[in-house]
């Protein structure tokens, strides 16, 4: 067997695995929809989670949030809708559900910086492609005509300037994606904001389920977070992050 045949075989196996995972994810998604429509919210949530284990999808997360909300897990529901909006901020349903849930639970969204606000306009990974693509396009437009002995045309310069402008404009949203990755949702009950990272520390505030927190740093099993109640330490087990690492 020569190396070309071996490479082709490996490629086909990987491709088959990817298709198989995608098919399994869609089967679990359909199973979740069936359970949900039958009013069986817990099995529906399990099926949507199974689907997400195969493939992260905005629609699956939206449905997971609905199932969690219906079975009385508002923190998990808000987390799922936040993740759905994180994957596809252009879809209105997740935002609508978040507004409704926050109004019902009386929790406020975290105040985002302008960088973070702009990063919500497009899916997080798109900003990377925009920044990378525009940067290298600008570099290519400046250098390639020289390399390939092409006459430098006005459109080369225009395209390079345009690409550079897009690149510079995409830097703040990329920074916003980095900082927004530290946003989490309180999903555990009895979450308390403490003065120091110890179990017996003085309580600053009780964090309601669904409350957004911004991780500033970590120490042991505690996170130092920024909340609308101020800064403090919260047990790690009470918080789940929109962008899990």
């Amino acid at each position: 067997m020569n190396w070309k045949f071996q490479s082709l075989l490996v490629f086909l196996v990987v491709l088959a695995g990817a298709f198989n995972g995608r098919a399994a994810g869609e089967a679990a998604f359909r199973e979740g929809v069936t359970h949900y429509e039958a009013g069986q919210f817990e099995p529906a949530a399990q099926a949507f989670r199974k689907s997400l284990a195969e493939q992260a999808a905005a629609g699956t997360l939206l449905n997971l949030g609905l199932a969690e909300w219906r079975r009385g897990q508002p923190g998990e529901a808000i987390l799922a809708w936040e993740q759905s909006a994180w994957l596809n901020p252009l879809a209105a349903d997740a935002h609508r559900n978040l507004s409704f849930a926050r109004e019902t639970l009386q929790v406020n969204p975290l105040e985002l910086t302008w960088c973070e606000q702009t990063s919500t306009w497009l899916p997080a990974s798109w900003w990377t492609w925009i920044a990378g693509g525009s940067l290298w396009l600008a570099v290519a437009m400046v250098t390639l005509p020289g390399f390939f002995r092409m006459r430098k045309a006005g459109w080369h310069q225009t395209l390079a300037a345009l690409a550079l402008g897009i690149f510079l404009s995409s830097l703040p949203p990329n920074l916003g994606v980095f900082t927004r990755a530290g946003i989490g949702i309180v999903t555990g009950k009895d979450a308390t904001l403490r003065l120091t990272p110890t179990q017996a520390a003085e309580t600053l505030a009780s964090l309601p389920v669904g409350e957004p927190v911004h991780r500033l740093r970590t120490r042991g099993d505690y996170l130092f977070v920024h909340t609308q109640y101020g800064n403090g330490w919260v047990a790690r087990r009470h918080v789940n992050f929109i962008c899990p690492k």
Partner: protein
Amino acid sequence: MILVLSVGPAWVAYGQTQGVPTPDQLAQIIKAQPVVDVSAPVTVTASFDPPLVRPGEKSIYRVTFDATEVSVQLPDQIPAPPSLELHRSVSGQNMQAVNGVPRIISTFNYDTRAAQPGVFTVPQFMAVVYDRQIVVPAAQLEVKAELPEPHEPVRQLRLQTSATNVFVGEPFNVSVRLPATANHPVEGVGQLQLNGEGFMADKNTVRQSIQTVEQNGAKAPTFIYETSVTPISAGLIELSAQGFTSGMQFGGPVIITGQISLPSGQPTFVLLESEPLTINVRPLPTGNELPGFTGAVGSYTCDLPGLATNMLKVGEPVQLTVVVRGPQYLNRISPPLPPTVEGWQIFPAERGGLIAGAGASGPGAIFKYTLIPLSAEVRATPAIPFSSFDPTRAQYVNLTIPPVPVSVMADETLTNADTALMLSGNASEPGKKPGLSGLAKTPGHTAGSLVPLQLHAWFPLIQALPALGFCGLWFWDRRRRYLEQHPEIVRRRQARRALRREMRFLEQAAATGDAAGFVHRAVSALQIVSAPHYPATPRALVCGDVLQILTVSEREGNSGATVRHFFTAADAAAFSEGAGNNAGLLAEKSSLKEILAQLEARL
């Protein structure tokens, strides 16, 4: 007599909160703070307080470090005698001036008891401070059955609560007291904190006072710290307090009642603790909750709502004011969410502050709802469900805000489309919870992971690939330009390549005994290796041209002769009708290769 004593820094602190400081002001404030000295050698003290106790009586083994609390690592087990019970209790740090320099002093308390009389020594042991080994000195506790009177027991904070059996969400008062003793005059307690799980202390309701309190039949001036605590989880709560004695330094206003002499002098900061207190927190009963319960626990009533005006126009906002009255903890009440009803758009309530009570009506909290009538058909504001839990009766109380009659006029300035738009945002579909979206029928936008590309560790490497490509292009272009300016390098390189090819053919011809081919390849190789020196096309060179490349000695020696032989034989083969016998030239292969090697070296 009531005297309100306030401390300068406290008022300064209040003054600072009136305006939001700018970043420059913050920088000035930070710069104005005293520099904390952490560079000096760490000093450690260890002692028992009191050092002389009866059997079974509590004493505190107290270790202090001249370092921050987090930097101190004490061993899990203190090397104490086996008959001496020693349990870690509380720890804390505060800032003290040592020789005029602010230092952070950390204190670690251990509860100790000995059942039998004797002298118990905790030997010196090692602790780690700032990653350095520090010796904690030995300390001695003497336990005697008979002690000389008067004997003062261990000094502790006294914790009292207004209730020990409460419901979740039911606030209760907590009082922490430090009475004066024969050896210790009355003094304040700083950095006071309540320890435990499952409750929330209210910092906004703290009151500090000094008054004479009778305890165990004797009156003594006592420092009292009061606040309120709200349990947030059901079960048994262990509540305890800790704080540093602070002399006459109080972290806020203090009310002094009666004739009390206040000592002067520098305070001694000693970490004190209280015995824990167990609070039984019962869960709120489930199953019979009333609509609109937002967690209000207490004895509350709701006044009749007040509407700014009863004559409304469609689309015109109006304010509905609701007052909830109760004895205390009014700032804890969350207003009920407005219902979704047809014909009205209602915004969630805003807090309107607290009102003091007078006469029969107690204090109250004001909530203001903004309502917009969307139709001229409505005749009253909607009822807003609200309820509270009364812990004294252990049942939920209905406090629903009743409807208020209104008269709504149609507004001609609003079009039908505007009204339809306003209604669509508020309309409720039967059997479906308003506001939630429908189920997604397809997984939709997919991604490999929730973690975006830029947060993956391999992302910078991927970005390096285009950079490497452009670098490669740049090097290629630079090299090309260089070669364009130095064509002789290209010619020599081509000559070397062609020479290697000819040498291969030469070897083949020699191996097969093809003398004519050998001569042809030999001449061709000589021409190729000589051409870059002129420069010229290799086939245009003649024997003389090749000889010019050789040195005079080579030209007149064997090398020159060999070259001539090969060119002569080649010319004969090319221009004579009968080719001569060139078999003898095969024997000159080694000298030919030598000449070619010399000429190649001159390229």
